[in-house]
């Protein structure tokens, strides 16, 4: 078993009246990729921000190497993040050199900017360029290089390829896989594309309405999905955009079922108790579970 790098226990984040994240627990292990799959609004990006400590959790705790880290800068030395939009995550007024020099200075690392660029397969002369002179894929590589500058144990990748052209997505994902192997990184891969989770991640969690509804090794979750929501997600693939539309339900209806299962309003297999009682987790296979009433009888 790979060693645990980051552990989140019972994370809750509430904005005014909206519960963005409800009771999420996760374990990230070194040398492994964990995928967090969900559509927009499922709370998956909030989880990334919570784990990056960009927002404070309302409840719950985050353990790094088994302990709570009080000093944020020390935490950030170990946990780094890659953002979704490479056009927005680099400051247009600074050169690539500036973007890469800063984390090296902050975390007192000995590498040079050129070494960082080489690590993400970019030529050294990119250092003098500005973000707008680079393509989306090149920028995302710079963003990855910046995250790696701190020598992190954990890399949080929030939809790292969703803004890129389809033709270059694979290249960036392969780069991440390669870096994971070489640097023994624990990677959290957040995506709305469940198909890419199968290819890329060792373990997959599916999020809906701020909660994790299903989890297990990627192969079983994507090949034998148990939760009706995961099944819908996979049926509507390969076009993840369409999934969002097909599954759409009025916001008020979704919000109304706060007591029972979050998915009740949109579930094709909804039962009476789904509206009133939250479903417990049931094992549906080897290390594979789902939070759904369908499997409660079977397990009992």
């Amino acid at each position, binding site marked *: 078993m790979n060693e645990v790098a980051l552990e989140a226990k019972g994370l809750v984040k509430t904005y005014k009246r909206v519960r963005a994240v409800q009771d999420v627990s996760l374990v990230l292990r070194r040398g492994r990729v964990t995928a967090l799959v969900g559509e927009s609004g499922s709370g998956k990006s909030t989880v990334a*921000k919570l784990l*990056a400590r*960009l927002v404070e959790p309302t409840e719950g705790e985050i353990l790094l190497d088994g302990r709570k880290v009080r000093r*944020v*800068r020390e935490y*950030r*030395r170990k946990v*780094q*993040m890659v*953002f*979704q*939009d490479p056009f*927005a*995550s*680099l*400051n*247009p*007024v*600074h050169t690539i050199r500036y973007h890469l020099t*800063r*984390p090296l200075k*902050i*975390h007192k690392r000995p590498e040079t900017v050129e070494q960082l660029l080489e690590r993400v397969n970019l030529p050294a002369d990119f250092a003098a360029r500005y973000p707008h002179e680079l393509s989306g894929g090149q920028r995302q590589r710079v*963003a990855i290089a*910046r*995250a790696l*500058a*701190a020598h992190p144990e954990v890399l949080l990748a929030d939809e790292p390829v969703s803004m890129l052209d389809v033709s270059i997505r694979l290249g960036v994902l392969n780069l991440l896989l390669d870096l994971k192997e070489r640097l023994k990184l624990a990677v959290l891969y957040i995506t709305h594309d469940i198909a890419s989770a199968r290819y890329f991640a060792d373990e997959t969690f599916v999020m809906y309405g701020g909660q994790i509804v299903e989890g297990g090794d990627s192969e079983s979750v994507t090949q034998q999905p148990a939760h009706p929501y995961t099944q819908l997600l996979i049926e509507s693939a390969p076009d993840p955009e369409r999934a969002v539309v097909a599954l759409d339900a009025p916001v008020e209806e979704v919000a109304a079922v706060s007591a029972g299962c979050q998915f009740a309003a949109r579930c094709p297999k909804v039962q009476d108790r789904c509206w009133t009682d939250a479903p417990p987790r049931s094992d549906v296979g080897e290390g594979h579970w789902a939070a759904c009433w369908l499997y409660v009888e079977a397990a009992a």
Partner: protein
Amino acid sequence: MNFKTRLGLGILAFFTLIAVIGSWIAPYDPSAMGDDLLSPPSGAHWFGTTMTGQDIFSQVLVGTRGVMVVGLVCGVLATFLSILVGVTAGFLGGAADEALSMLSNVFLVIPALPLIIIVASMLPSADTVLIAAVISLTAWAWGARILRAQTMSLRRRDFVEAARASGERTWRIIVFEVLPNLLAVIGSGFVGTVIFAVMLQITLSFVGVVSLSTWNWGTILFWAQSNQALGQGAWWWFVPAGLCIALLGTALALINFGIDEYANPRLRKVRA
């Protein structure tokens, strides 16, 4: 850079030059009385003379410096204040933002002119620098308001989050990540403040609450008005100074359009 912006910069450069060398190239002492009383423009007196025979051309030349100094001092002071208040409010958000926004709105709404007139006339010696400081205190609010809005939209951008995530400290994020992206807004705010300050100073001189011992374009207009230049048809007494004000104001406004168009591509001219 388009023609309008270059024209603006050219006029500004011209007045800056006059501000520096004006008192040396002036043909007469602006306060010295002469024998040609209230004479229209001529070869000897390009802009004519006043009731007491003072040379108006020399007054305009010498008076340029006072105008430009007040504009510059106010521009710097007020821009500094507006960055301090506006960027802080926009970046911090929450209660600090509420309080600072309220402060700038109060300063915006209170009519500055009557207030400054009262302050200036109560001060025992209202010299140029003191007036510049007082004007700055009322001139920062508009810039702060615009900077706050811009900062708020920048604060939510990913590169600010990314800088935080890579471990940057808050003050460094404000100074090195946010401020450089605000340069166009700050620049246009600076120019706007200079226009405001110049107008206000000239107005104060014209109504006679500022020390009349130093020349500026407003003082010329004050003497013209108090000596009934209008009624006597002495148009040359008040036209040159007024045109200079309008020219300087136009130049600064043109520069500001240039900055706006640079910062907001939608405002650029449509090319067929």
